[in-house]
């Protein structure tokens, strides 16, 4: 049974990555926002860096980790979209009619999405380095950044998997992610330091998980990661992951049985 789980997950990974290679526009579209944000904001708001502490390395150094983290939010809806498509096309029923391991259906999708987010993040990191961002923690730091972004993506993907399984509508998933995206990233520490925000926005930002994910990524890139930043971010993301995964699993079991 355990072997089947691994074998079937690998088979589905092969399926999803073949699809990605055949439809490169999907990956390209996903990369437009982070790459554009990175270039536009850093090149247009050059003077903004003057307001930042001298040690910070300018606005680009502040912005880049936030943008890397954005990949998690952009990748999160993919699993839900794919699940809705497979439910509608009958492909999910077809999989359920085989002898395959049931959890592999979910696992294959989750692992794919995390790997895709890692690929997107690597491309973003390369662009950031080309623009002059210093990754002072080196490869181990970059590795931890990728783990963090993938973990955050996993935590968020449950929301969209649940919506996808329940509504079977990709439009609903796009609408929800569209509505959540801008408020979540702009009222957080992802793009701008919260010290520039009015107090109400600072309050919202202090509860916004995107802030926690951005802060830990920023510290992993620039160095100076404190245990408390790391623990609070991982506990919060872990808690979100636990809740969203539990709901996804509940919805998924209803479909499977």
């Amino acid at each position: 049974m355990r072997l089947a789980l691994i074998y079937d997950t690998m088979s589905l990974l092969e399926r999803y990555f073949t699809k990605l290679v055949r439809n490169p526009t999907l990956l390209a579209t996903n990369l437009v926002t982070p790459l554009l944000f990175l270039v536009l904001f850093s090149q247009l708001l050059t003077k903004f860096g003057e307001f930042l502490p001298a040690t910070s390395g300018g606005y680009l150094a502040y912005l880049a980790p936030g943008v890397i983290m954005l990949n998690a939010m952009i990748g999160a809806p993919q699993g839900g979209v794919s699940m809705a498509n497979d439910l509608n096309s009958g492909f999910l029923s077809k999989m359920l009619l085989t002898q395959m391991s049931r959890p592999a259906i979910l696992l294959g999708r989750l692992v794919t999405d995390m790997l895709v987010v890692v690929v997107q993040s690597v491309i973003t990191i390369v662009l950031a380095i080309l623009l002059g961002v210093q990754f002072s923690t080196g490869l181990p730091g970059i590795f931890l950044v990728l783990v963090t972004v993938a973990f955050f993506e996993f935590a968020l993907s449950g929301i969209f998997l649940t919506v996808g399984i329940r509504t079977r509508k990709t439009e609903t998933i796009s609408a929800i992610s569209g509505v959540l995206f801008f408020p979540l990233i702009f009222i957080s520490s992802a793009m701008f330091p919260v010290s520039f925000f009015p107090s109400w926005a600072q309050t919202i930002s202090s509860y916004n998980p995107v802030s926690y994910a951005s802060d830990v990524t920023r510290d992993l890139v620039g160095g100076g990661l404190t245990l408390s930043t790391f623990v609070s971010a991982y506990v919060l993301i872990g808690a979100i992951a636990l809740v969203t995964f539990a709901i996804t699993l509940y919805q998924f079991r209803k479909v499977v049985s």
Partner: protein
Amino acid sequence: MGDIISAENLVIVYRDGTRAVDGISFNVQEGDFFGFLGPNGAGKSTTIKVLTTLLRKTGGKVTVAGFDLDESPGEIRKTIGVLSQETSLDVDLTGRENLRLQGRLQQMHGRELDDRIDELLKLVQLEDVARKPVGRYSGGMRKRLDLASALIHRPKLLFLDEPTTGLDTQSRTAIWEYLEGLNKSEGLTIFLTTQYLEEADRLCHKLSVIDRGKLIASGSPMELKEAVGGDTVTLVLSDSSMKSRAKEILKDVPGVVEVIESDGGVIAYAKNAGQIIAGIVTTLDRSGIQLSFLSVSSPSLDDVFLRETGRRIRSDELSRRETEPFLM
């Protein structure tokens, strides 16, 4: 040979309370080509979903390949292949990749899987396009590939839910030939649902006619047609309000077994209808009932359905019988 499917008093009730399948019983023997014939919404697809473990039944006792449906769905899935009504292939993958994925999900691998894929591509004549994405396949090609993917793990029992609905004549005939071959040469047991009379008539050794969740007749196509009681004489009246009068009159014509009312007139069943046709026309004429159309045909499965339900099987472009219009 023993029963490969046995269903006793199968009941399927939807969450909204609809009784989709209302206490049906049937047996399918190993090696059979068995069919469920009925109009849209009769309960055919629902029955297939339950027999293939995709949907839970509400009541009754069902065994498939010797396993209880509720207790051993996993064992049943190993034995069966399913071709669902909607073609479910990944259009981004090639034909070969689709078969490979399906085979791997059926826990096959290595040389065994590769050989089986080659064998099936040859069977459904898709070797030439096997490396093209399925998105570029025609409807008929997709159906053939889907059939191959249902057969990948060498099932003993194949379920087909309306396998030729929406296909052109050529693709339909191709599918029929594959199925007949698989049943005859490999002894594959086939359970098919269809709304096409010609399909049921040509392929199935045994049929159950289903309507509104109930079985209304069972037997071989020949037995079912014989039970209609003879040839069918279809009479369309110039004035359809005369239907019941015509029915009364025709009942007394010697040789007429039964008369029923239909859309624009009446249908009479008679042994050797050709010999009494003159009598029918004269009798009606004498009573002042004008005919606008008359035809004589051998009984079809549609007549079986009509006799039991008073309706014809709908949306059936294949059922145009070989009629021989007389007069008018």
